């Protein structure tokens, strides 16, 4: 009787261990777990993207894990807001102590992928700071990033088909070393102010 109980308990334990092993090793289940992770990654609070940098190299947000990403959206034909923001950003980066600056990857993402090829992006970001990464991609790629970051932008027609401008969100998005959204920063007009805000944010 006691023997039978012990045998039954042993059988239950063995079945449980077998079940755990099956669950852990099952490709189907790990795929589902993988999908779960992917779903989290595509939520608005994750800074996910898969784009092309200014050298033509495919990059994604995981390439920058371990550092903060400071992401700004705009377009290279932008005459005022984008250059002002990137000037403030470049000035702020210059003012950071090297240890703080090393923690931050500044990233400029175009909202005008039709015109902003990697070569155009290279010319653009290098005018402000060699530290800034310029990202472009297909219209679909850019649409996905916009959705992830909840960025608003809309094309405004000009006097000729190629003379359009783009209304867009003008905030900086700070993404943590874990890839999770941390804060939006209003760049303002002061490099000193932004440098101070960044120093505090990445401690």
């Amino acid at each position: 009787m006691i023997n039978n109980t012990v045998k039954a308990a042993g059988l239950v334990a063995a079945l449980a261990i077998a079940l755990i092993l099956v669950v852990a090793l099952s490709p189907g289940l790990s795929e589902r777990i993988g999908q779960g992770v992917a779903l989290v990654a595509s939520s608005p609070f994750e800074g996910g993207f898969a784009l092309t940098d200014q050298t033509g190299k495919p990059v994604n947000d995981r390439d920058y894990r371990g550092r903060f990403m400071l992401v700004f959206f705009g377009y290279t034909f932008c005459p005022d807001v984008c250059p002002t923001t990137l000037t403030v950003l470049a000035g702020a980066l210059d003012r950071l102590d090297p240890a703080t600056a090393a923690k931050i990857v500044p990233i400029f993402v175009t909202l005008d992928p039709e015109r902003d090829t990697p070569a155009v992006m290279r010319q653009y970001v290098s005018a402000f700071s060699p530290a800034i990464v310029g990202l472009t991609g297909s219209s679909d790629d850019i649409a996905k990033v916009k959705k992830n970051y909840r960025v608003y932008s809309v094309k405004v027609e000009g006097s000729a088909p190629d003379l359009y401008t783009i209304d867009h969100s003008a905030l900086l998005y700070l993404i943590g070393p874990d890839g999770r959204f941390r804060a939006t920063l209003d760049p303002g007009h002061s490099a000193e102010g932004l440098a101070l805000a960044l120093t505090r944010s990445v401690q």
Partner: protein
Amino acid sequence: MKRFAVAVGALALGLAALPALAADIEISGSFLRPPVVDGGNGAAFFTITNHGPADRLIAAAAPAARAVELHTHLRDGDVMRMRKVDSIAVPEQGRVELKPGGDHVMLFGLDPAAVVPGARLPLTLTFEQAGAIQIEVPVATLPGPISKPGAHGDQ
């Protein structure tokens, strides 16, 4: 190198302080934020001082641009909307400042040769009352000035 660029920019702005006068309208402190990429868009900024009756800036023209428009910026939450306006009012005995983040003369598709650092871009401004005024706008060094030096300090 960067300091040198800033010094050149400051020098360009110093030259820009020479005012252009026609009738009652005086234009001062002009500078052009050039496009960063070839054939891109630029913006011209300046201060209009009116020594006479109320007037309006109604047009701008530059041979080096494919199109020129008067623009303003509207801030809508965190979105900046740049919009064409028909005119920019200049009050009687008043002063209007076109500055980054606000009103500006938008220059589409600028000829790269016309906007090299140190160049001066010919720009014709047409006022309803005062008529046409020719100015030469110094091309600022990139990264361009955030605001005109001494205008508001570094807020």
